[in-house]
């Protein structure tokens, strides 16, 4: 059962940082709680003070910045993102991904910021955001800084966030002309067994450049350069595409996958290869539609 803790509800980032400073050692920020409260219940983490970020206006909302970047406030719930017309229009792959996270109860409570800050190796959005070259903003006593998603997760359940820092927003660059972004996963339990995100650009019927990110296999989602490289230059129609997909799937063989309840490392790499093919197909369709 969940141990006793005290809860504070700051109204601004400044108040949150003050609350953090005032608190004793065992303090954590709380967003949706779908991960944090679970690990507390399981006795895997003990916090005597929780600082609830959900009342801070600046951490909410989904908008488009003047340069076309999609800005998602860190405490936006998965459900908010799934249903956002802006997200559906500008990052359809993310909207689809969010609609398939866990179950509707989790999506109604869990937040994107909380998901990234918890850094569960099987995170759905982290894999997609990594492939998209997304970044995020952190606010601390020392001021604000922007980090690439690639720099943020440093290990399982570990990020580059300083303890006092608040995750403010996630920034997703606008899709370029001819760009497609897609994600697919396979899940046997609550979390994915394997997941793959593909971002690619199609120019004149060929893939001009491609990024492949793989989740759930390693400690943090990783970009597999060889897989993206294998897709580069491939025609999007005919046998050439299939050959390139096979080569890209082969490149996943080098991923240092961890065995877990979903299966062995070999099997999980195989699943990632299957998903790579599916996600790349969707990304190509999106790219061709945008061209």
């Amino acid at each position, binding site marked *: 059962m969940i141990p*006793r803790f005290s809860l504070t509800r700051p109204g601004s980032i400044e108040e949150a940082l003050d609350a953090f400073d005032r608190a004793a050692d065992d303090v954590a920020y709380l967003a949706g709680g779908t991960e944090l409260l679970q690990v507390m219940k399981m006795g895997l983490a003990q916090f005597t003070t929780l600082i609830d970020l959900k009342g801070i206006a600046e951490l909410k909302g989904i908008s488009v910045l003047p340069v076309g970047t999609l800005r998602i406030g860190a405490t936006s719930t998965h459900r908010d993102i799934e249903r956002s017309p802006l997200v559906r229009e500008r990052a359809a792959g993310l909207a689809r991904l969010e609609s398939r996270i866990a179950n509707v109860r989790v999506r109604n409570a869990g937040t994107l910021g909380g998901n990234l800050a918890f850094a569960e190796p099987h995170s759905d959005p982290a894999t997609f955001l990594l492939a998209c070259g997304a970044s995020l903003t952190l606010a601390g006593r020392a001021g604000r800084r922007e980090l690439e998603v690639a720099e943020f997760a440093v290990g399982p359940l570990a990020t580059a966030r300083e303890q006092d820092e608040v995750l403010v927003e996630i920034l997703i660059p606008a899709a370029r002309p001819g760009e497609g972004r897609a994600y697919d996963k*396979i899940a046997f339990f609550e979390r994915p067994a394997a997941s793959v995100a593909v971002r690619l650009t199609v120019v004149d019927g060929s893939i001009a450049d491609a990024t492949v990110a793989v989740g759930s296999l390693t400690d943090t989602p990783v970009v597999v350069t060889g897989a993206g490289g294998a897709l580069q230059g491939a025609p999007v129609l005919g046998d050439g595409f299939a050959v390139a997909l096979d080569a890209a799937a082969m490149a996943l063989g080098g991923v240092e996958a961890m065995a877990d309840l979903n299966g062995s490392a070999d099997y999980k790499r195989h699943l990632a290869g299957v998903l790579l093919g599916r996600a790349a197909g969707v990304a190509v369709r999106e790219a061709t539609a945008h061209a």
Partner: protein
Amino acid sequence: MKRVTTRPTAPSPIGESVPRRDGPTKVTGSATYTVDVELPGMAHAQILRSPYAHARIRSIDAEAARRHPGVVAVVTAQDLPDVNLLYGHAIADHPLIATGKVRFAGEPVVGVIAEDRATAAEALRLIAVDYERLPFVTSVEEALADDAPIIHEEPGEQRSHRGFEEDIERTHPNVCSHSRQAWGDIDAAFEGAHLVVEGEYRYPMCYAYAMEPYTSVASWNEGALTVWSSAQHPYMVRDDLARCFGLPRGAVRVVVPFVGGGYGSKSYTKIEPLTAALALRAGRPVRLALTVDEAILTTRGDAATVRVRSAFDADGHLLGRHGAIHLNTGAYAENSPLVGRKAANRLGGPYRIPALQVDCSTVYTNTGPASSFRGFGAPQVTLAGESQMDEAAELLGLDPLEIRRRNLLDPGERPWPRARGIDADLKADLELAAEALGWDDPLEPGHGRAICMSASDAGSEPITTAMLRVHADGSVTVMVGSTEIGQGSSTVLPQIAAGEMGVPLDSVHLLQSDTGAVSYDRSTGASRTTTLMGLGIQAAASDAREQLVAWARDAVAQNGAPVVEERGGVRVAGTFHDWGSIVRAWFGADAGEVIGRGYLRRSGATAEMPPFWEIGCVGVEVRVDETTGEIDVLTLVTVGDVGAAINPQLVESQDVGAAMMGLGMAIREELVYENGNLLNGNLFDYRVPRTTDVPELRTIVVERGDGVGVYGAKGGGEGSLNPVAAAIANAVYRAAGIRLREAPFTPERVWQALRERDAGR
């Protein structure tokens, strides 16, 4: 739902799909479960559990916990010198709290009672236990090694009075029990065989997930004990409590409020002795409410390794079957010796086998204790037996249905000497399933179909009593020791009473599962309640009516006028008198009641064992995704051969629920131990089927009036679980040409089998 009914008609509302009585209460949240029971002065318990699979307890330092504000008492085995700590109705080997050593990770070591749960949980963290770790075993193979650590140094006391007559063959100190089922000349059968099919099949360690975890509230009052509990068998729990605390059975009252699912996991005694012991030391009523994670550690199903050889003649007739079953029964016997005996009985399946020899050993390991689980040995062995029928059919060039037609028992035929004859038309059931599944329709590539069957010796013991009271206003109270665990007994039993008394259903009220108020029933399990308690109620109704007719002669009829019994009352000199008016006339006031009694034992119609055969007949169509190894079960056919469906809709929901439970274990569920600890003992990582996993359903309810129960009823609710894993394995073979012998058939196992298939091409 399709209905096939040839049984004799029954009085209304028997046979009608009336809405379940507990439905509105449950869905509106007003039902009172054990966790809702509040007593004045009640304190709350939390349990410190062993982190190690096998360890000696050197010392326990609980001083800081005792001093923690809000703590009422801290209890270890040493604090209970006046309690008989060992319980277990088959073998008394299970200490209600660890005594000297722990035998699985998760075993209760210390109980803390506090003013509230949070305080008790805080105090747990202040307790220091010094363990001396011992070598441990978690698999049967490890447990039976020559140099394996011994889990029980002293064999537990055999408590044979409840029907565990066979001698335990202790071939290895970690063997908990041994059963053999045998008939015919097994050696001759195999010598004369045209074909012998041989294989090893594995069934996983599973958890019978119920939404309500185990919960008990115990209260002592002037030397008498009252326990509220989420228990299926209140009378058996009562008897264990009486034994643990040296009380007469009459001084123990076990009350079962609403139960949030059982599936066998709540049969027999669980946390009730521990809760009562904690309340004894606390000097106050105590509630112990486990979490789901703790419940998973409390009981699970027996994992099985089943080695089988089946001998056939050239025409596909079974000549003999030889089996060796090992059940991983965990740290304590619980009900596994009986599961083992049933597994041995059930490996033969629904077939005519001239010679059979099956040995089944239950084996202690350092894992959570296994006990009853819906199907009870049958799912484990049906995977083996029914796989071999399809394997043999292929080698003999026979259709899988044809080999079954040639071997299925005929109605009345005895599966083994002295057993009750089969009370079902198995071949007709098979044809119904084949028709529903579209057996002869063309199959799409990557699809496969299969139909599998089982017959279980079910019903447990016919030891049942019932009371039926008719009040002065004609309303009826029925009092039974059978529990509503979600299966619908609180609807079906009043239907039987209303039909037998000829009164409206809404005038019948039911009181269940309170050993201080209702009369004895052995258990709510083995699919026995509708059949055996149904007979009990029928007998009680008959007894009540007989008395009422006599009272009518005495107090209603003038001058010896004839009294003719009719539906719901009597007719005297042309005037109808309902039951209530007879009660009023006899007592001479608007008061009083008649008490009807029903007794059931091994006698008359229920003399032969088993009381009935529970039939399983399931068909599936599956599709195999060769890229990921996932099995998609597209169609599920269930045939509920229940003799007489008192409430057809409830029969259907039991069949679908049972089959879905079987589907979960066939393709996904398995408790996984690593380094002596349960890896996935939570609902994140242990996934049970959901409504979204339900395939297209084609359900059939069959009523041929061939059971021993009222209007030919016999048990259902477990049968449709038993053949599911085998049906999926056989359908996958037809879809993809791979033979799966180890459940669950996880995507990776399927993918590996596909790779092996392709490597062999």
